[in-house]
């Protein structure tokens, strides 16, 4: 969890400083003095000491990827998910087509119909992941928080069409219990209620 907080910190370090560079030697004698200083003034041996120290400390930073994975940030933008309403299990998508319109890579296609309850629902929802640039506009524009970015970044496959169909992205009905309210990209912030001001109607 420590690492996750590290991701969430958006403040850049203020500890920048300029490295002090000594003036370049001009005469051969100055060059020779610099070589003596660098080689005999233990500068070479400081290098050796540091590498040996790191080897003995054995403070390895390697993440053995398929076995170990780093936590990804909550606002990470990977393969999309289509969410359902938590109580009824109906699809959240109202087929407004805003995501299709806003998509700058032009990779989203929706077919919609009006179902027996009079709700407009998408019959087909496909994203061409060969073209998607994962900009997140679709998730941001969605008024119902129906299309969101999930965390599945391991999207290598034999077929380009994989992951791209509605059935792949939509939360299955039996997994509805596991669906959490999406806190990531495009979702309202936890303090949205407090921050939204009433529209003043009296002018």
């Amino acid at each position, binding site marked *: 969890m420590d690492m996750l907080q590290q991701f969430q910190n958006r403040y850049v370090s203020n500890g920048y400083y300029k490295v002090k560079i000594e003036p370049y030697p001009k005469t051969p004698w100055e060059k*020779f003095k610099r*070589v003596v200083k660098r080689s005999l003034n233990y500068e*070479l041996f400081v*290098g*050796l000491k*540091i*590498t*040996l120290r*790191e*080897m003995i400390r*054995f*403070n*390895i*930073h*390697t993440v*053995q990827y398929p076995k170990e994975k780093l936590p990804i940030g909550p606002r990470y933008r990977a393969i999309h998910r289509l969410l359902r309403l938590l109580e009824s299990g109906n699809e959240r998508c109202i087929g407004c087509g805003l995501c299709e319109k806003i998509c700058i890579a032009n990779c989203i296609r929706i077919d919609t119909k009006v179902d027996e309850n009079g709700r407009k629902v998408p019959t087909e929802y496909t994203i061409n992941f060969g073209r998607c640039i994962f900009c997140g506009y679709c998730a941001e524009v969605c008024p119902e928080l129906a299309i969101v970015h999930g965390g599945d970044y391991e999207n290598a496959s034999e077929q380009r069409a994989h992951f791209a169909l509605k059935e792949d992205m939509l939360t299955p009905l039996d997994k509805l219990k596991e669906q959490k309210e999406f806190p990531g990209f495009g979702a309202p912030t936890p303090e949205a209620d407090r921050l939204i001001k009433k529209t003043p109607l009296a002018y």
Partner: protein
Amino acid sequence: MESAFIIETIIKILVVLGLFSALAGFGTYVERKVLAFMQRRLGPMHVGPYGILQVLADGIKLFTKEDFIPQGANRIIFMIAPIITAATAFIAMAAIPMFPEFTIGGYTVKPIISDINVGLLFVLGVMATGLYGPLLAGMASGNKWSLLGAARTAIQYLSYEVVTGLSILAPVMIVGSLSLIDFNNYQSGGVSDWLIWKQPVAFILFLIAGFAETNRTPFDLLEHEAEVISGYATEYSGMRWGLFFIGEYANMFTIGFLVSLIFLGGFNDLWFIPGAIAILLKVFFFFFLFLWTRASWPHIRPDQLMWLCWKVLMPIAVINVVITGIVMMF
């Protein structure tokens, strides 16, 4: 007598050839692991336990790769060049006494293929010939980067070889022989007899020249990837490239043996450690030193190498020889 000698020599040759080819392969594994640990990485981990079979995987890859000769290359020289490097690396080992004498079933074995009385001269001469490998390879490849690598080989060759010869002259004057066995016997009286105490300057100069001789990091101008792709080896692949590598690692072991024999008491018993293990420890320390400096130090420019060798190291070596001569005279 004659046939026994021939059989013994052939067995020794096969042992040295097989052992050092295997050690060269294992050396790549050790190098990758040590460099990785020094850079806070893990190195090869997936092939076998702790990646130890990576050597085998690399070997299979090298052997099964296509033997490729580019169109513009000089075919014959292109094919011969890697063999020069590997062959000279192993020929140089012929005059190196690896271990103390030992007895198997009443038969005394001298672990040296040929005890010639100019052993040191032979080893250094043959190792110097090995630089023709990169030189010819670079010139025969028909590739700009290879040509640059070959030019750098020539620079390096002209620079360090003087230092090697002059730095080793002072110990040779003290011992009075060119045979490495004589060097070893000269230092048989324990640590205080080691030549490094009498010739510390020569030790450092020879070590620096040894780094240049084996193209290791501070002087790896020949194939520095960031500057000349892979230098002389740009057009090589498969086992021909592998021969260059085996030659380089065999040379590292040769230099390790040479420095241990000349300056650090060779295969004499060290306190409670038997001689054979003592020299192995010394050689592996120098092998580690090669990797250690590679992880720590940047490499230098060709002009800096020439400046260092001709204007700094060679005068120091000459002064060292003169002072040694004066001290020996009085």
